[in-house]
């Protein structure tokens, strides 16, 4: 790229990268640099080459590809070169719908109705721990949010393949001989090793449909606490009319910032539920490949399913065969007179390892214990 033409192309490409960033692809300046070098390396710029060079340098995961295709078509007015097919759902439209009951921090009234928020006594906390999330006043909600952030779910351990030095166990030839070398080749002591322990992966699937909206905020904060506890061993997805991976959004340190990022990422807040389809999408794209294998999988849902219960039963069964434990959290379970009669819930029930409530802080504490089991 030389002369004015080169500058024009550069400006054009940088503009395209900006469009892409707005559409939600994390194409940072270094990626843009790489794209410019890649386009340069390809010589004559044809739409096809431009498409591939941009896609391979600006995108970083399959979720980016559909957005990229749409942005490319919109910006350059063309279409991706034909030849192969990439089946993916329509690109998620950037949505800025705010979640129910979790507006920007500070929006909740802190004066007036609830002057006694600060300095809750032990017994007040006790009562608060047993209050249903759906029935909290704004003041109580702030306190509950603070307590939720303190939860740190810890998963059960499994034996790791990596062996670590230990007293007892099998002989570690490498360390024994290395120690011998230090003593001019005289073996002085047998070094031993054992297989270590690693926490299992934790996968949280949170139903964000309309019927779950009173609990979505608390459950997503629970998910945030879990992600903060083990950032690389926790995966969080939301289930609604579609599947959305929100692990990345939840990595923000601050719960409010994380929840805001989540609300931006989820296109289907408070829509309907197609639980079976969303579970299937999770299993096809993530679970079967390994995310759910040997993991502790927790589904937060009331089991209200618009589709057929049979499909949900099939997907739950599939999930239970992959997961180490499958836990279902239904906020209605804690209520008097609850029976799992909702079509979806009854269908899923035979495949669960644990069925817990999760509608109060105490119930979530119970969930933490179940996860650690």
């Amino acid at each position: 790229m030389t002369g004015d033409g080169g500058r024009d192309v550069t400006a054009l490409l940088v503009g395209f990268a900006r469009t892409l960033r707005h559409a939600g692809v994390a194409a940072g300046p270094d990626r843009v640099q790489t794209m410019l070098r890649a386009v340069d390396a390809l010589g004559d710029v044809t739409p096809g080459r431009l498409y591939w060079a941009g896609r391979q340098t600006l995108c970083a995961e399959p979720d980016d590809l559909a957005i990229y295709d749409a942005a490319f078509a919109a910006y350059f007015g063309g279409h991706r070169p034909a030849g192969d097919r990439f089946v993916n759902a329509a690109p998620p439209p950037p949505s800025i719908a705010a979640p129910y009951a979790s507006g920007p921090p500070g929006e909740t009234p802190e004066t007036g109705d609830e002057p006694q928020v600060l300095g809750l006594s032990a017994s007040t906390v006790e009562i608060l721990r047993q209050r249903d999330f759906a029935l909290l006043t704004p003041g109580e909600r702030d306190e509950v949010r603070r307590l939720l952030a303190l939860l740190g779910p810890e998963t059960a351990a499994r034996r790791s393949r990596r062996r670590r030095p230990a007293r007892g166990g099998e002989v570690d030839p490498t360390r024994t001989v290395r120690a011998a070398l230090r003593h001019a080749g005289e073996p002085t002591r047998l070094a031993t090793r054992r297989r270590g322990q690693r926490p299992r992966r934790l996968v949280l699937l949170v139903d964000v449909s309309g019927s779950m909206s009173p609990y979505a905020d608390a459950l997503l904060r629970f998910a945030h606490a879990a992600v903060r506890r083990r950032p690389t061993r926790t995966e969080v997805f939301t289930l609604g009319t579609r599947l959305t991976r929100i692990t990345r959004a939840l990595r923000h340190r601050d719960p409010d910032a994380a929840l805001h990022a989540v609300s931006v990422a989820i296109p289907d807040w408070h829509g309907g539920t197609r639980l079976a389809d969303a579970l299937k999408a999770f299993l096809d794209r993530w679970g079967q490949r390994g995310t759910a294998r040997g993991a502790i999988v927790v589904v937060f849902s009331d089991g209200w399913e618009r589709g057929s219960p049979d499909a949900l039963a099939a997907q739950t069964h599939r999930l239970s065969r992959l997961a180490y434990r499958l836990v279902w959290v239904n906020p209605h379970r804690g209520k008097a007179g609850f029976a799992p009669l909702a079509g979806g819930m009854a269908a899923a029930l035979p495949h669960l390892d644990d069925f817990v409530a999760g509608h109060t802080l105490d119930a979530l504490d119970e969930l933490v214990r179940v996860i650690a089991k």
Partner: protein
Amino acid sequence: MTTALPDSPGALAEALATTGYLADDGLATAGFLALKLGRPLFLEGEAGVGKTAFAQALAAATGSAFVRLQCYEGLDAAQALYDWDFPRQILHLRAAEAAATAAASATGAPPDAAAIEAGLYDRRFLIARPLLQALETSPCVLLVDEVDRADDEFEAFLLEVLAEAAITVPELGRIAAETPPLTVLTSNRTREVHDALKRRCLYHWVEHPGFEREVAILRERLPAVTERLAAQVAAAAGRMRELDLIKPPGVAESIDWAGALVALGARTLDPDLAAATLGAVLKYREDVLRVQATGLDALVAARP
């Protein structure tokens, strides 16, 4: 045996084709850019679409050596990079000691302890694991397969080796690659690979081939397959991929299937043969039932 580097994605696709790998435009462009920009190439895609085969073909097409590092949980530096051969070092030490003592009694000179010690950390006692092999062999294609299976700490370490194209063995000093290896990483997305690693790489999602390309791949890989059989297998595999199966067949499975049919002496695919050999292409009972339910007659029709 180094061949000239291809000067366009098309030229690379041709060079790959001579090794029996038929790449589409996207993959050829990705490979070309990785060569030209000296960036690692990060490949993702369904299982069996030819990610590993691509790295092998790339090595053959560019006349480079091929080194593969298969990642697994618990992989550490001693298995990925280098390890000292301690037993041989001890043998060497004992032999040197005996020789020095004998020499000392003959000449009266004291044994040269420094020389023995220096001899102990010689390159010949260093066992090169894949990453060191890749640095010591130029030119070379390094395949880091299924990087998502390794622990996340391993990524930081890999990143360092890739960025420097050199490692430092404390006892020996720095070992740098003459030309940095062309690195291909594959992932099955069982977990998110760290951004820092991805940022250094070109990213490409490998897709299932279209009908024509799949026929060409089958005929390339299995010379014994008839044109009609290849077309039927490719069309059937394409239909299966649209059936919403638990494990849709990749190219690897359609090659297996065609191979099984050739082994049975088939020249065309009929419903009975398909029923008998479905196990070569579908690996879940649910999938087999589903395909049978949609009808094997429709499945084996020649055109997509």
